[in-house]
């Protein structure tokens, strides 16, 4: 079974620039998550999609972050404009009807963002 795919793997930008990340979840997984993981901390949920609808975006800094999942499959996360404190690894995860049940989230390799 193919895992969660993310791109790019690394991105370096200057503050105030824009950046976009892409995620392709495991086939058939209805739920998709974007997490931000700052060095030394556990992942923090930014947004959760169920199919193409938003379930939870309470911790998404909406003044600069946006995300979409138009066709209920792939998703993009955008930061515009970026700040120094946005430097982190951005993880995408998906969950669905696996043998462990719908609660188990499978993570992609992440995108390491450095804002200079």
């Amino acid at each position: 079974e193919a895992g969660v795919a993310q791109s790019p793997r690394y991105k370096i930008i200057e503050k105030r620039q824009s950046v976009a990340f892409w995620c392709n979840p495991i086939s058939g997984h209805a739920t998709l998550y974007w997490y931000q993981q700052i060095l030394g901390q556990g992942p923090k949920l930014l947004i959760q999609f169920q199919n193409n609808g938003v379930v939870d975006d309470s911790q998404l800094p909406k003044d600069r972050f946006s995300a979409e999942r138009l066709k209920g499959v792939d998703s993009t996360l955008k930061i515009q404009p970026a700040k120094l404190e946005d430097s982190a690894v951005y993880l995408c995860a998906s969950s669905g009807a696996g043998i462990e049940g719908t609660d188990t989230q499978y993570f992609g390799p992440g995108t390491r963002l450095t804002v200079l």
Partner: protein
Amino acid sequence: EDKVVQSPLSLVVHEGDTVTLNCSYEVTNFRSLLWYKQEKKAPTFLFMLTSSGIEKKSGRLSSILDKKELSSILNITATQTGDSAIYLCAVLGADGLTFGKGTHLIIQP
């Protein structure tokens, strides 16, 4: 607000030792507790524990959920250098999935 606390934050042991990692939680409407192993990439799933499945084992790794004490332990026996990683505990509750800060485990040869 849901809360997950892991201890210790870091641990250094020698190859062959047995380690026990701890996770305690305060969540509303507990559904499940998950353990992940994170190396220099995204977390990989290890175990999921629920009210109906409070003990899991896979090779040298095992985990137990204590719903009375609101905690879980992850045991690794006969540790190997490849076990060096950050071990993350996450709990699914009313606020969704909440992660602890992880235990950074270092296995010395």
